[in-house]
């Protein structure tokens, strides 16, 4: 599904040049669950942004489903993104002004799904995530675990092929964290490819493979399953 080769990303300010990704190469196959680990500043987040088509690399190649996307413009990236990729963030990133239902509905709106169909799919998803009873609440009225379940629901409601999770349990206690990890595992078992950035060895053990990064390069890869 994903094949990157010699990927480079350099941040420049007036005086300092920071190399975030240094000729990084790896690949992720369909249906895999990959964890990316490494200390702060090793380039994990930059990698995730590029994989999520939120940012573009300075050099190297990025094949997404066999298509070279490294130099797509914003419009093309956005189009590809909304059809194929779901995001889960550490800080949930729900829109405070929208209800649970409306937050989950959002990707379907931007995909142009009709109202009836949207309602059906959102309700299905909320049911699955066991937050149907909270559908008309606003994010601030929910616990962290519930918020992250909403975020996961939103990430998968348009049935993406790939989920990018950025420390999905970082703001949760262990019980809620485990629940979210179970959810992701379920999704993976149903065929969704998952790439997850995490600091937690415990969470990483849910994945099939761990990529460890340092200074913008992969250092080791452990295969778990």
């Amino acid at each position, binding site marked *: 599904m994903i094949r990157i080769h010699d990927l480079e990303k350099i941040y420049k300010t007036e005086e300092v040049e920071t190399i975030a990704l240094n000729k990084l190469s790896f690949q992720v196959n369909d249906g895999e669950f990959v964890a990316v680990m490494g200390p702060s500043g090793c380039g994990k987040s930059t990698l995730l942004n590029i994989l999520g088509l939120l940012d573009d690399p300075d050099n190297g190649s990025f094949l997404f489903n066999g298509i070279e996307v490294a130099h797509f413009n914003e419009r093309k990236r956005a189009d590809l993104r909304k059809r194929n990729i779901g995001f889960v963030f550490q800080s949930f990133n729900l829109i405070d002004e*929208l209800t649970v239902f409306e937050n989950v509905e959002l990707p379907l709106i931007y995909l142009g799904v009709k109202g009836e169909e949207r309602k059906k799919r959102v309700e299905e998803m909320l049911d699955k995530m066991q937050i149907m009873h909270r559908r008309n609440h606003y994010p601030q009225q929910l616990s962290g675990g519930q918020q992250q379940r909403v975020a996961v629901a939103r990430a998968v409601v348009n049935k993406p092929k790939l989920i990018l999770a950025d420390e999905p349990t970082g703001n949760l206690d262990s019980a809620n964290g485990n629940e979210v990890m179970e959810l992701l595992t379920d999704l993976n078992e149903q065929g969704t490819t998952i790439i997850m950035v995490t600091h937690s060895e415990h969470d990483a053990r849910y994945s099939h493979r761990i990529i460890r990064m340092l200074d913008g390069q992969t250092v080791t890869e452990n295969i778990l399953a």
Partner: protein
Amino acid sequence: MLKNYFKIAFRNLWRHRVFSFINVIGLTISMTACFLIFLYVHFELSYDSFHSKADRIYRVVTDLKTPSEMLHTGGPSWAVGPHIVQEFPQLEAAVRTTGDELLVRKGNVKYQELNSLYADSAFFKVFDFKLLKGDPATALNEPLSIVFSQSAAKKYFGDQDPVGQTVLLTGDGLTAKITGLMEDMPENSLIKADMLVSMTTLTRKFNPGLDDQWGNYGNSTYILVKPGTRISALQAQFPAFLERRNGDEMKRLNMYPTLLLEPLKDVYLRSTRNGNNTGNINNVYIFSLVAVFILLIACFNFVNLTTARSAERAKEVGIRKVVGAMKAQLTAQFIGESVLLCVIAFLFTLGITALLLPSFNQLAGKIISTGVFQNGHFILLLLLAALGIGLLAGLYPALVLSSFKPVSVLKGRFSTGSRGVLLRKGLVVSQFTISITLIIATIIVYNQMNFMRNQDLGFNKDQMMVINTNSDPAKEAFRNAVSGMAGVKSVAMSSSVPGGGNPGAYSMIQNKKGEMQIANLDLYFVDFDYIPQYHLKLLAGRAFSRDFQTDTTQAMILNEAAIKLFGYSSPKEAIGRRFSQWGREGMIIGVMKDFHFRSLQQEIKPLSMRIEPNGCNLISINISAKNLPATISDIEKKWNALIPARPFSYFFLDDFFDKQYRSEERFGKLFLNFAALAVLISCLGLLGLASYSTMQRTREIGIRKVLGASVTNIVNLLSGEFLKLVAIAIIIASPIAWFAMHSWLQDFAYRIHISLEIFITAAILAALIALLTVSFQAIKAAVANPVNSLRTE
């Protein structure tokens, strides 16, 4: 999708109530101000456009060249109207009008009709004033025919049909027939009258021969030309026409008129020949400009507050982009929000305008509009304007917000930094530049008004009660009765008083070279008591005196302006020189100091005074301030006893004179109101901006306090930044205001100097207002416990 936008827009507005409130209030105030100004401007521009033939109606005016000066009159001589229509086939009709104050009596009901108008019979053919009863073609044909307006007719006839009935006209009690009833004339009409009297009353009964008097002025003449007439070609034929009909007299009198045509639609706003009660195209421009400025200020507020808040909205933008929103969709969403805001403001504007309209009408001194909801297309226009404002004001913030990169905003690393700060500062500076310009302008307008009211006019206007006897035969008897009364200091009679009209007379005065120089001199007929009672100062010679028998017919007093016109370098030189005026000849016996017999807008003109009891209809009574009501009621009793046919009415000279400044006063008041609004809206914006800026700097303030900064330090830090912007605005606004107001003042012959003080006052005022606005936020931030702010990070 649209529903989603509106939903989130509504919730967003509600959640950020302060922000929304400032924006909606600012937009509402500015839209209300603009709407009112629009109504005013529309009204001013609508003058006389209700006549269906307005495009073919012209007013005939005259430039009259004498050996001494060029006079610009508002009408031609009496003969022009009847002759011009005979001479030129291009004309369909000509109408002369002249105003008068006529006594009308019906049984016990008597009124001095102040808005009487003599008009030629073609009046209803040329103009579209609606005749409800009577025949428009013949109503004004016969002498002593009257057409009443509805409200005037009501005074005499109640709900009865007045047509065919009679009233008694003038003090002589001539029987006049009511031949028509017309709708009250619209407010936006140059011609206004409550009562029309056939012109033949004047030309056949009161003053036969008027139709052929080429040297007698004092009427307005309007012509209706046939469709397709070339006005310039028509005008070019006038000199030959005058030469043919009146060439000999022109040469003999050495006065040469030039006839000019003014399009009717331009007369009210653009002609300078209308006297006091007229519009001014410059005021229309000025208020339009003010409206645009006020709107700009509110739009700037919107842009400022929205971009200042961008950090808050950034997360939403990021999320929406991550889940698949395109930039264009986000742009549309944000524009939608600003449009929604404007639509809310539009609704408020409608309501508030409806509430304010009566007071605005009062402020403007006329019924600009009877109701907001009377005019559907105005409301539609306002709605379109609101949508347009929403679109324009929302465009920039929408583009900025929708271009945020999700990568940077979602990780919380996003800071507004210096982004847009320069723009916001620029906009604040422009807002305050506009506000300060308006403040300076207001101060100057008010100073000029004060100056005009308090300037020494050169005559005594205090405690001076003036009664018009309208040449009643009992006027002398009344005067004698009043002069002996308790509470009356002195009594004088004259043809004119300062601030009112006076005749201009064809005069020949011996000039310095000894020649008899022709000039049109302003003329006051007075009695022996007038000059002392009005405290007019003699510079040379003497005042009129009963000791000199010849003074009643052969004496003239001139003012300084007049002797300058005739070449004298000192008042003394003019004494003893000869004059000839309106059939009288004699000597100049005195020269008086110039006094302002017209408003301070006008230069003091050459003025002559003569004794002429027949011409003196105004009685000026200098009464003591003690027991004023009792004295007035005594005077009224005397009047009712001696002149029972006429209603008793009077005015006080100081009020009367100040009336000339009423339109300036209104201008000043309107200007003050709109300037205050502009300042208010600017401050609203500043308040919002200050609160966001302090919010963003909470952490910085916390750190500074931990490091030992005092509350004063912090307040200075936060306020200082905004004061700097105001200072820049003052520097930009001052020359603009100076330039604009310098040219405004050119309309006044006597005017104030624009002093440095005015700018300093405005600067201090603006700085104080800004400081008050900002310091509240600054103090709040400065006294907060730093622990709280540092913990939030």
